[in-house]
């Protein structure tokens, strides 16, 4: 993972800025994991759903939009929210290619004030707060999605 960040960063910093490089690298990593989640979610939807949709005359596009995707979201959400939390932590790696994220700013502050433990502790707390907040939001979304459905 990290070498991927470095990979994009070191090649690209010459032409485009570090933010885009970090975004591309993290996006590539995230898309690889997310595609796995989606594949397993697609596999969990029985063929009968497609056949039923075909039988009532839905086009492939409508089948996807009205029948498959609503179920897919419910199946994929736990995996995606997990990935979101992992991605949140992985963003700290962009500080290595010179982006001014939490870790980098903390490093600067620590070097200036010589209070490294305090500042890195605060950085860890910030990440924890972000994780707690996003897990609240994610579980709210999950509750919202699962409320509207029947028992599987």
């Amino acid at each position, binding site marked *: 993972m990290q070498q991927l960040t470095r990979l994009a960063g070191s090649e690209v910093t010459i032409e485009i800025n570090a933010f885009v490089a970090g975004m591309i690298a993290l996006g590539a990593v995230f898309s690889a994991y997310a595609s796995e989640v989606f594949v397993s979610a697609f596999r969990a939807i029985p063929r009968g759903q497609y056949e039923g949709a075909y039988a009532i005359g839905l086009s492939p596009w409508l089948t996807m939009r009205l029948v498959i995707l609503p179920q897919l979201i419910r199946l994929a959400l736990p995996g995606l929210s997990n990935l979101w939390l992992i991605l949140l932590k992985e963003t700290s790696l962009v500080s290595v290619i010179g982006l001014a994220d939490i870790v980098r700013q903390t490093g600067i502050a*620590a070097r200036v004030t010589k209070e490294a433990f305090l500042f890195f502790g605060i950085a860890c707390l910030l990440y924890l707060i972000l994780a707690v907040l996003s897990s609240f939001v994610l579980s709210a979304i999950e509750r919202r999605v699962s409320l509207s459905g029947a028992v599987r």
Partner: protein
Amino acid sequence: MSLSQSAAQADDLPPPVEASKWTRARITGVVLLAIWALLGLGIVLFLVSSWNPELFRRYAPNYLSGLWVTVQIVVISTLAGAVLSVPIAIGRRSKNRIIAALAYAYVYFFRGTPLLAQTFLIYYGLGSFRPELQAIGLWGFFREAWYCAIFAFTLNTAAYQAEILRGAVESVGRGQWEAAAALGLSRFQTLRKIVLPQALLVALRSYGNEVILMIKGSAIVAIITVYDLMGETRRAYSRTFDFQTYIWAALIYLSLVEFLRIATDRMERRLTRHLRR
């Protein structure tokens, strides 16, 4: 009679399979696949075209020593983390509220913050306590980046492994405990002979994943001046400005992870052969 019967049968037969058509979805799929294949081919071609025996002879030993450092870090911290994870897992299951809360806080902290921030917290942060550490004679330990990295990784992986262990032990049914108690086995005997053998089978895959995560995470130590595989790669890149150094590192990490994945697969198949029909 027989003629109409066979005609009726012919009606019942499924329609003949149509030759697959070049639908829009299929064309898109093939084009996308071709793009991926071209990208892969491009990397291979780049490696072949920029093959430089001089460079290889110069940096291959460095890469090997870096790989050895990476393996050492992963093995040591995974084993130490496994030992440390046992009391944490017990604490998570403890009935004592305070102990359970402490264990949960530990796990939550180490799973909720980035490994990079934890490593910095220990490597740079503990420097603030230099007088105190010197007083208890631990400064020599925390002065070295190598020990700091192993310490941080051990704490981190202990949190993850504690969760794996707890989940695996909880996956073993209550009936197993009760049956063992009925046979007059002590709690420790039950754990060692009945519960753990079943729990560890469940946990094997998760442990494999955790080791793989550790391998990928261990690249972080390059930032705190430990020359592991990533550190050697960065050094080689800073000397040659040759982009292929990173590709070689990626290939080495990839083969390491792939080797581990195959090994855990084999192990799981071998260990669960009594469960297959």
